[in-house]
Structures are given as C-alpha cells and as structure tokens.
C-alpha cells in the first residue's frame, strides 16, 4: 500500500492514545473482578471521559483532513475507517465502565466469577488483536479475528445456560448475566474494527450477518 | 563637471537625432512642396475634364489621361487582386511545408523587387508583339503582375496570423476546408488583405515604365481597352520634356494629381490599420 500521509499518521497516533486508555481501564477492571473489589467507578468514569475527548478530537482531525486534502481511494477509506474505529473504541470504554457500575451495585463476595473473568480476558485480547491488525493493515489477521468472535459468543451462551438453571444467589445470577452480556458486546466492537480493517485494505464491504 | 557632461551628452544625441530626421524629411517635403507650388495653378475644371489642345495652343486638359489611368488601374486590379489573394491563400492554408510552396514563396518575394520595366517588356513581348499594336490590356496585365506579389504577401501574412485554434474549431464542426479558408480565415484576415490591396494600388499608380511599352499614349478619349490609352504617368513624361510652356505646366498639374492620389491612399491605409482590427458583427 501507499506511504501513509502525515495527517493520517497523526490521527492514528491519537487512536493509539485511546487504546492506551482502554488498556488501562481494562486491566483495572480485570483486577477488580479477580479481587472482587469495588470503588473503581470514579476512576473509570474519568478515564472514559478522557477517551471521549480523544474521540471527538479524532473526528475533528478527520473532517479537517477531508476538507484540506480531499483524499481519494485508500486515503479516503483510511479517514472514514479511523472515524469508525475511534467510535468502536469509545464504546469499548463505555462497556468497561458499565462493568464497574455493576460492581458498585452488586455484592459478589460469594459469587463464582471465573467464567466471566476468562471471557473478559478473551474479549480484551480480541480488542488488542483487532487494533494490531488495524495498525498493520493485516487483512488475514482481521478475517481470523471475525471468526474467533464465535468462541466469545459460545462462552456467553454457556454462562447464560449455567445461570439460567440456578435457583439461589440472585446477585450472582444478575452479576454474571449482565457482565457476560457486556463483555460479549465489547467483543462485537472488536469485530467491527476488524471488518473496517478489511474494508480499509480491500475497499469492499462484505455482509457479515 | 562629469555630471554636466553626461547630461550634455544626452541632449547632444537627442538634438542629433532630430537633426538627422529633419534632413531625411526635407527632400520629401521639398518635392511635395515643389509639386504643389508648381502644379496648383494648373488645376481647374477645364484641366480635369477636357482633351489636350493642339500643339502650342493654350488651354485644354488632361481629362483623357485621368480616365485612362482609372481604366488601366481598374483592369490591373481586376487581374492582380484575385490572383494575388488566391496565391496568398494557397501559400498560407494549403502549402505550408511542401517544396513547391517554398519555391512559390521565394518567387513571389523576389518579384516584388523586380524593376517595373521588366514587367513592361514582358507584357510588350507577350501581348503587344502578338497583336501588333499598343494596347491598354497589356498595360493592365503588366501592372496587375506587379500587384500580385504585394497582395499575395499581405494575404498570406494576414491569414497566417489567424490563430490555429480557429481552424481547429471549424474543422471540428465538420466544415470543409475550402469554406473554412474563405468564409472564416479570409474573412478574419480581410483587414490585412485590404491594406495589401491598397498599397499595391498605390504602387502601380506611380509606375511609368511598363506603360511606355504597353499602353503608350493617346491624345484622345479612350476608345477601347485594346487600344493605346493615355495615362497620367506617361503624360507627365511626355509633357515635361516637350518644351511647351503650357504642357510643362500641365505636367506639373498631373504630378500634383498623382501625388495627391498616392498620399491619400497611404493616409487611408494608416487610418485603417490604426485601431486594432477586431472583426465586427
């Protein structure tokens, strides 16, 4: 592919900064889950706000580049994809924050959270991999990632099935159900990032439904 | 000291140029002055409209010469201008690069420098000797030939100057070449062509040598174009050397007429070419 123009490099640098924030929240949430602790919500909210500001900045930079450079072909696709990726990342942030909100309200001292922890770890890995494929413009990687969404979906369904038949421990059922759902949505966004990466490289969109 | 000298040098050169120009113009003004002074007294109605009086008699005029000049010049134009325009058109539009074109162009240019007497002799041997008498047609032929190079050159150059974009536009519309050449390019160039024709006319109005071999002279009104005919130029030649007071005066008058004709044509040409030719609706 062509050498990346400077405006694009700057936009991608901002996306990388967003990724760092996501990584930071993600790690803290993962720990909180493992230690079954709460009190993370304010920190998460603050970081999320930062990410939001970065997303708005990225959109502004993209629009500015459209006006100034009137790009075509791969340059044009890169701008539209960057805008979408930044949105997806902001959603991931939001979902992580949602988890801290649930942790705040629901006492899980006595709950089994191993499955949900694993699911979160996998989903975070997916986000990480999808962004790697995006920055490296790796079409193959992105395609494989879309396939691996299946395993997240399977994990989510397993958790649902398990807790659907439980009679006692309403707080645990609630927690696991909601958190699994949130994580599954996170993974979906990693998927969307991969779909955009494929469009970025090939210029074609496929129906993934 | 040095500064004064520099300014002084400038002024010196300026005055020198003025002086030289004056020196160059003086003879011209002198000639015209002489002609006017000497000829103006000869001009009157009788002079312009009646035939010459018998030898030695006073009175009479140069009416036949005036008419003769007009007829001969008109015929020359009828021959020289169309041929000249067609030649110029051909050189400009049809023959830009061929060998033949280069040859024709060289010939045409050289012809404009050939002494007029040669044309006279040519017409003499071609026509006068064939029909075995002096005739105005031969005069018109010789003068017409002299017009051709001037008209052709003016036509060619005026048409050359027309931008090629115009020709492309016409071609792209499917307009055939001959229509494009005549109705568009020539039409745009008509100012330059007209100028060329006027200058050519001015040239032949002043030529005497060809007429001596061809139309010769006559003391009568023109009877037919195949007959000898009077002309202003030959009249001046004859009368000035005659020794008769009356005739010498008439020669001055005829000279004045000629000068007036030639000068007016040149003034006309200048006034036509002054505003940039724009091509009206």
């Amino acid at each position: 592919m062509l050498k990346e123009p400077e405006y694009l490099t700057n936009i991608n640098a901002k996306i990388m900064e967003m990724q760092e924030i996501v990584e930071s929240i993600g790690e803290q949430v993962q720990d909180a889950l493992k230690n079954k602790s709460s009190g993370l919500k304010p920190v998460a909210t603050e970081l999320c706000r930062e990410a939001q500001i970065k997303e708005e900045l990225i959109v502004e930079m993209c629009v500015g580049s459209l006006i100034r450079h009137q790009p075509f072909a791969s340059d044009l696709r890169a701008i539209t994809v960057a805008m979408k990726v930044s949105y997806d990342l902001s959603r991931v942030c939001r979902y992580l924050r949602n988890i801290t909100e649930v942790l705040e309200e629901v006492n899980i001292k006595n709950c089994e959270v191993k499955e949900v922890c694993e699911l979160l770890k996998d989903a975070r890995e997916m986000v990480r991999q999808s962004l790697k494929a995006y920055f490296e413009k790796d079409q193959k990687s992105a395609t494989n990632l879309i396939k691996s969404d299946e395993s997240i979906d399977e994990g989510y369904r397993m958790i649902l099935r398990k807790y659907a038949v439980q009679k006692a421990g309403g707080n645990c059922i609630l927690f696991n159900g909601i958190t699994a759902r949130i994580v599954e949505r996170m993974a979906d966004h990693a998927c969307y990032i991969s779909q955009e990466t494929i469009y970025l490289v090939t210029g074609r969109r496929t129906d993934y439904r | 000291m040095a500064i004064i000298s520099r300014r002084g040098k400038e002024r010196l050169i300026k005055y020198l140029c003025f002086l030289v120009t004056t020196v160059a113009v003086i003879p011209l003004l002198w000639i015209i002055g002489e002609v006017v002074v000497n000829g103006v007294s000869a001009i009157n109605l009788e002079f312009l409209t009646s035939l010459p009086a018998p030898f030695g008699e006073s009175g009479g005029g140069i009416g036949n010469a005036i008419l003769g000049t007009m007829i001969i010049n008109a015929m020359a134009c009828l021959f020289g201008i169309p041929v000249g325009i067609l030649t110029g058109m051909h050189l400009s539009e049809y023959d830009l690069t061929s060998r033949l074109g280069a040859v024709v162009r060289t010939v045409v240019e050289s012809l404009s420098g050939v002494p007029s007497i040669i044309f006279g002799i040519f017409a003499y041997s071609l026509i006068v000797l064939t029909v075995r008498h002096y005739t105005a047609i031969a005069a018109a032929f010789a003068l017409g030939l002299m017009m051709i190079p001037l008209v052709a050159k003016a036509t060619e150059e005026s048409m050359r100057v027309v931008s090629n974009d115009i020709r492309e536009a016409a071609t792209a519309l499917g307009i055939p070449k001959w229509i494009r050449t005549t109705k568009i390019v020539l039409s745009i160039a008509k100012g330059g062509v007209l100028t060329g024709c006027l200058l050519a006319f001015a040239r032949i109005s002043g030529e005497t040598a060809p007429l001596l071999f061809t139309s010769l002279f006559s003391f009568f009104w023109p009877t037919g174009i195949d007959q000898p005919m009077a002309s202003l130029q030959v009249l001046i030649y004859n009368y000035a050397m005659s020794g008769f007071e009356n005739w010498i005066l008439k020669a001055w008058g005829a000279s004045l007429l000629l000068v007036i004709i030639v000068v007016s044509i040149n003034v006309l040409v200048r006034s036509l070419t002054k505003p940039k030719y724009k091509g009206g609706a």
Partner: protein
Amino acid sequence: MANNIAKLDIQNLNALFYEKHALKNVNVKIPDKMVTAVIGPSGCGKSTFVRCINRMHELVPGAKVSGKVLLDGVDVYGGMDVMDVRRKIGMVFQKPNPFPNMSVADNVVAGLKLVGTHSKKELAELAEERLKSVGLWDEVKDELKKSGASLSGGQQQRLCIARALAMNPEVILMDEPTSALDPASTAKLEELVKKLKNEISVVIITHNVSQAARISDCTAFFYLGELVEFDETRNIFEHPKNPLTERYITGRFG
C-alpha cells in the same frame, strides 16, 4: 454500467506520431448518455485518444492511426465520411475559440450557416434554443449582434459548446474545457456538463482529478499511452484496482 449500451466501441486503437507510439492498443467501450472522464498525467495520450475519436489526430503531420472506433457499430475510420464523423462527434477545446468575425448568434449556428441551406428564421430559432440550453440566453440575448469574441471567457466557452451542440451531435468531446476558466465559470460549466448527459454522451479530458470525481459517471485512466483502468467513477475513487491508478489519484505522482 453493464446496463448501458456502448455508444463508442474502441478496438485496438493505436496512434503514432512520427516514431512515437502515442497510443498503445486501447480497447474501451464508452457508454451512452453518460459522462466519461479521461484522466492521466501530462503526455499520457489522453488528448491523442480523444482526437482519434473524431478523426482530428490524423490532421497532425506525421500522424498514423490504426484500429477501429465504432460509433453505434459503424467504424468512423472506414464506414463514414469524415465530415459526417465530425458533425456527429462534436468537440470543445481547452482555450475557447469562437469565431471573432461573427456575431454571437452567427457563431452558434456557424456549422450550419456556412455549409447548409437553412433559412434565416430557422437559424435564428436554433441559435436561441441552443443558447438557452447552455444557459447563455439570458446573458447575451441583448447582445446577439456583438462579436463572439467580446464575451467573457466562461461565456465564450459555453458559446463554443452551444456551437458544437447546434450540429446535433451524438457525442461531445471536451478537451480540458475548464482549464482556462475561473472557479465560478468552471462551476457553471460543470453544471452544464451534468445536464448534457441527458441528451448525449460526453467524454471529458481533465487534469483535475476532483473534477472527474464530481461530474463523471465513468473514468478512464491513461498512462504512457495505455489505458490502465476504466471503471465506474465511484469504484475508481473508492477502491481502484490498479496501483498506478491509486498512486495517480491520490496525488503520489503526475
């Protein structure tokens, strides 16, 4: 694009200019009633290509053309009289070239008036109709008798288009028609081009890639005498197939 019939079917077109092989084996189908843009860096052959369509290239000394250009199935190089070709395929040039010795009205109908047998009334009506269709009527209706060259640049160019359209061509070729115009006139002309495609096919050369993106339905990219890519404009500008095309339209060269 597959649904549109080809107005011009160009087969194995080769053009030479003395020893230089200006066009190499060009094969393309220009669709009917659409705007096709021809883009490419300087010297790539786009002007030569377009001039081969209406047989103007062969007027250049040293020019040779081989191949077929089929207009509705008839080869312009064999099956038609060359004057007919130029009447059916009109052309507008980079520098507006109205005839300076004719009035505005006469310019519009020049192709007919100088050659044909139309009556004065017919010509006047036709001139008005064509001036209206290029959006010039209101601007010049009080100045119809003025010289064609007295109009502004943008007006002159529209006048030239009206003049070409008066011949009722089936295709109109435009060689960088807005290069010499200011932005406002350019915009007016682009609007006109977009309107024209309802009547006839338009082939427009442009060195301004954005212009091609704005007004054309299909785009042909030429490089060094070869047709590198030809596709719907949307595809060319969103995901061109050939890396050369991509490099050109993103401004990496040319």
